[in-house]
């Protein structure tokens, strides 16, 4: 199997290298063929691997590929751990990536228009884009297949690098290069915590290999360490909170969420692939992978839970007031990532990964559908200019509808199973913070339905398009764009129903995810609903269903039936609207506090410290002192014989006096 795993990882890398270094020579067609087939090979092999696990023929693979280095007895390897959790991630990553590759052929076809004339920066931009998304796929696969913390960090930062390159893909746009710097730096804040977590693991476990760390975890569960003075903390809490700070950066959790909405400056295919389906879920995957550690720290779990719930609720609210089609979906992504974190916080790791999977499909679908609309609108992204697009773009419309229904958790759709499982798991949890989280995720369902269908109605229904010029060029997107939509719509609808029994209620994650009996919220849930059919059969008995329907209805009523209401609400609750529109002033605060603050500190240290004190006072100061003393002493050397004679006589007198007295 090792050859298969290696091929899964290397096929996209080889594609990326060819398209990146020889893009000019192999041309556009060559580039999209070599990268798409690379990722295609990975996707097929990943499905094969998953099938091997489903049929029970594959065993958990855990082996190193090569030794990165050994220092001080600490082995750092590059290696693979492939188990059921990895297998699911492999399929999700490669399948969505493959769809996005195909879609990109259509989306980026006219990319030369996005670059200024005469600029060489856009040379071979099409090939370069393919190279980047394949490189991303490689990095993401390295991340999910890693069997140790070093490689995890490698993949973690490598996806961050590609995200940086892709957000700033249109590198001549000021907004894009602002957004990518911001994204990288905010992610680095997360990585700052992450690397400290890894350092703590390396110190106390004396290894960074997953299997060895997890095996040792129970015996270290009660270790207390001093962090600040005499205050002692549980080792597991320290490690888990540090690691989770990394997850907060990558998975855009409050307060490190600010980079994700701005990342929409990148081309839409990567918003779907990186900033919805895969990279941003790395944090969720990481926590699930680390479940043998998190289970031993309720403090850390509560931390995860509260952060997740806060993100789920408050970022969802912002989604309601956004007018940029991509930003609505972006805030929806933030909110859904919060849901996944909530699942992890209540130890329903399987539900978190389950939602990660279904979300990957329907959110990638929604982004790609939004991209399809953007192509039709000739890169106008303001939903206020859209409307009635249904009749121009039927495939985009129907796939968007399916995706939206999956997102709001309409019974039977994928999102229904995964989201309801999370909400019920929170309901059964007794961990601190679960009460708050339950309210947040429950109300969140209403909000999700509201913003989703607000956008859906404003874009596809009613009179329109409101931008008159758009009528002339609106038409359905080409097949390379619509086929990926259809390919993603199918799992968005069905994957939940067909996998819920295995992933949630079965023993699929038995070896990969570790849950203490007293935390097992899914088992509690299972007692009530038994299985997927049970969940589906009782949809009318659950609150989320009515909340979702209410949200859908309110969206319809406000934006279709009585549009003036929207305006009335906006004026009446002006303060609320402003706060939401300004996204709780996070950006302004950070800009002033951190960006401005660091520049201020830097300037102060440079002016006062380096130039003032060290150079000014000490270095040049001593040079000046030497100069002054020399200048003063020089006065003695006048060159007049008379002066020297007097000095000699005075000296002689002094000497004599000294001799006489002593």
């Amino acid at each position, binding site marked *: 199997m090792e050859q298969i795993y290696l091929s899964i990882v290397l096929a996209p890398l080889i594609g990326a290298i060819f398209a990146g270094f020889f893009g000019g020579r192999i041309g556009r067609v060559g580039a999209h063929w070599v990268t798409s087939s690379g990722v295609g090979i990975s996707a097929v092999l990943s499905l094969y691997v998953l099938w091997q696990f489903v049929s029970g023929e594959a065993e958990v693979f855990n082996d190193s590929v090569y030794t990165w*280095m050994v220092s001080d007895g600490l082995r750092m390897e590059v290696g693979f751990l492939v188990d059921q959790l990895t297998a699911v991630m492999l399929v999700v990553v490669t399948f969505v990536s493959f769809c996005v590759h195909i879609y990109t052929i259509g989306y980026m076809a006219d990319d030369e228009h996005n670059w200024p004339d005469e600029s*060489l920066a856009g040379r071979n931009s099409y090939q370069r884009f393919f190279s980047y998304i394949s490189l991303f796929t490689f990095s993401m696969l390295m991340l999910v297949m890693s069997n140790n913390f070093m490689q995890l*960090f490698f993949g973690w930062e*490598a996806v961050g690098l590609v995200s940086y390159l892709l957000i700033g893909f249109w590198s*001549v746009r*000021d907004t894009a290069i602002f957004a990518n710097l911001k994204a990288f*730096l905010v992610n680095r804040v997360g990585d700052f915590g992450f690397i*400290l977590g890894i350092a703590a693991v*390396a110190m106390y476990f004396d290894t960074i290999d997953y299997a060895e760390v997890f095996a040792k975890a129970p015996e270290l569960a009660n270790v207390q360490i001093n962090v600040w003075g005499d205050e002692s903390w549980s080792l597991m809490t320290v490690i888990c909170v540090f690691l989770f700070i990394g997850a907060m950066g990558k998975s855009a959790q409050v307060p490190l969420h600010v980079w994700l909405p701005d990342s929409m400056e990148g081309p839409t295919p990567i918003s779907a692939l990186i900033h919805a389906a895969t990279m941003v879920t790395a944090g969720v995957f990481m926590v699930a992978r680390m479940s043998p550690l998190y289970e031993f720290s309720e403090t850390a779990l509560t931390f995860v839970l509260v952060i997740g719930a806060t993100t789920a609720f408050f970022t969802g609210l912002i989604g309601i007031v956004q007018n940029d089609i991509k930003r609505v979906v972006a805030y929806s992504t933030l909110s859904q990532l919060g849901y996944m974190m909530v699942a992890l916080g209540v130890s329903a790791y399987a539900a978190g990964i389950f939602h990660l999977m279904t979300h990957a499909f329907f959110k990638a679908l929604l982004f790609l559908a939004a991209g399809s609309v953007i192509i039709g609108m000739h890169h106008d992204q303001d939903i206020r200019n859209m409307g009635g697009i249904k009749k121009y773009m039927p495939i985009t419309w129907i796939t968007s509808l399916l995706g939206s229904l999956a997102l709001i958790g309409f019974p039977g759709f994928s999102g229904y199973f995964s989201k309801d499982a999370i909400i019920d798991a929170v309901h059964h949890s007794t961990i601190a913070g679960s009460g708050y989280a339950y309210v947040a995720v429950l109300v969140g369902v209403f909000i999700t339905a509201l913003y989703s269908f607000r956008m859906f109605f404003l874009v596809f229904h009613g009179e329109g398009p409101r931008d008159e010029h758009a009528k002339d060029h609106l038409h359905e997107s080409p097949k390379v764009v619509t086929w990926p939509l259809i390919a993603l719509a199918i799992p968005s609808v069905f994957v939940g129903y067909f996998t819920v029994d295995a992933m949630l209620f079965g023993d699929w994650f038995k070896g990969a995810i570790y849950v203490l009996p007293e935390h097992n919220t899914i088992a509690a849930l299972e007692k009530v609903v038994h299985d997927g059919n049970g969940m589906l059969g009782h949809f009318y008995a659950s609150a989320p269903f009515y909340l979702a329907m209410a949200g859908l209805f309110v969206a319809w009523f406000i934006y279709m039936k009585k549009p003036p209401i929207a305006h009335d609400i906006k004026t009446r609750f002006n303060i609320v609207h402003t706060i939401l529109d300004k996204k709780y002033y996070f950006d302004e605060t950070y800009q002033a506090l951190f960006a401005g603050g660091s520049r201020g500190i*830097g300037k102060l240290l440079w002016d006062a410290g380096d130039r003032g004190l060290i150079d000014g006072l000490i270095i040049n100061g001593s040079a000046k002192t030497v100069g002054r003393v020399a200048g003063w002493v020089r006065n003695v050397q006048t060159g007049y014989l008379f002066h020297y004679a007097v000095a000699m006589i005075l000296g002689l007198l002094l000497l004599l006096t000294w001799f006489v007295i002593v």
Partner: protein
Amino acid sequence: MFADWPILSLIIWLPIIGGILVLASGDNAANATRWTALVIAILTFVVSLPLYSSFDPTTSDMQFVERASWIPLFNIEYYLGVDGISMPLIILTTFITVFVIIAGWEVIQYKPSHYMAAFLIMEGVMVGVFCALDAMLFYVFWEAMLIPMFLIIGVWGGPNRVYATIKFFLYTFFGSVFMLVALIYMYFQSGSFDILAFHDLKLGLNEQILIFIAFLLAFAVKVPMWPVHTWLPDAHVEAPTGGSVILAAIMLKIGGYGFLRFSLPITPNASNELDWLIILMSLIAVVYIGFVTLVQQDMKKLIAYSSIAHMGFVTLGFFIAFMIMNNSETQGGAILGLEGGMVQMVSHGFISAAMFLCVGVLYDRMHSRQINDYGGVINTMPLFGAFMVFFAMANAGLPGTSGFVGEFMVILASFRADVWFAVLAATTLIISAAYTLWMVKRVVFGKVANNNVATLEDINNREFFVLGSLALAVLVLGLWPAPLVEVMDVSIENLLKHIAVSKL
């Protein structure tokens, strides 16, 4: 097969004698001069390779030893040898010099023979510093190093070069006279200038502390550590590109090397007593200098300051060893820090060289180092932009590049000394990314800022070769650092064993 050859002498004298020949050949046939210099540099690099291939990584003994009496009156010897600590630095020197010669190819029109000769002589002298095992020989090479660098900055430097050269010279000279006193003191104690004999010399704590401080003054200026770092930004700004490259890539490493060869093994008890001082200075270098770097407007100054911050990891990695040894909670970790510091030195050699070369490429075209004079370079120089982004990422310590390896090791190790050391050290993840990528954003990305940028031409084959080779080195070391760590492992282990034993 090469173990008995006088390879070290060859690496020292081939470039020095070659440099004198180049100097003598004059500037009449400038191209022939350049080629001669390049051939000598490449030859030296090739000759230095057996140091790696024939190196025995299983012993901490000195290898390729050459020993002859030099000044018998004072028992001064011509005594050379390498171990796992000095060998990688020698190969780094011979490697980087090749690219310095190529980088100055058509850029230097004023007295090219003198320029090339200065760098070749510099190369030999620096190798001498790394492999001298006689303290007086070491001191001679150490001081000799100043002369070519003084000339390089003074002759081919920028408008404010006189201030910079004087500052550079006085600063480093100030540091090294104290070292000379310490060396002479130990000569009187041991009867020879044999550095390895110094290692075994019994010294009282007060003696050790004085000697330690003397060494500290010399090495801290070279590294440079805060607060004796202010010569570096000025020297870099005024130096020609090649001078900056040698300065950052090699000369700074001599300070770090000095700590490992002299301070730690000769004065282990003093190092143990005063480790807090070095750690404090290192952490200030990482955080304080990081913030200072952020507000620099001059690209070379920015990279110079970033060098200081990165070198902070080297000294941090070296001196946390004592705290880790004294910490009962952990076994191991000290070697991780020491090796991390070493890896960081080699890696910084590649990355800082590449960064300065990148600035040099821009400076050759626009004759400005001010960030504000640039913007949107990617529109006219996409290939260069790709290199610049790559090296910036390496400078920010991205995994997969060599910049990550050393920092990762040192952060891991410093966590074992004290959680808060690790916390402060890890802030580099944020700060280094901020200053490097912010510079890249303002210089490389964006719309064409002005007419000068609009007329820029992308890098030529020569520049591509130089940057490409360094990129390859950065990548290989980042993806597979094991070969580097393996050769130094036994030497570092032995060093640690040595410093764990009290000399009192």
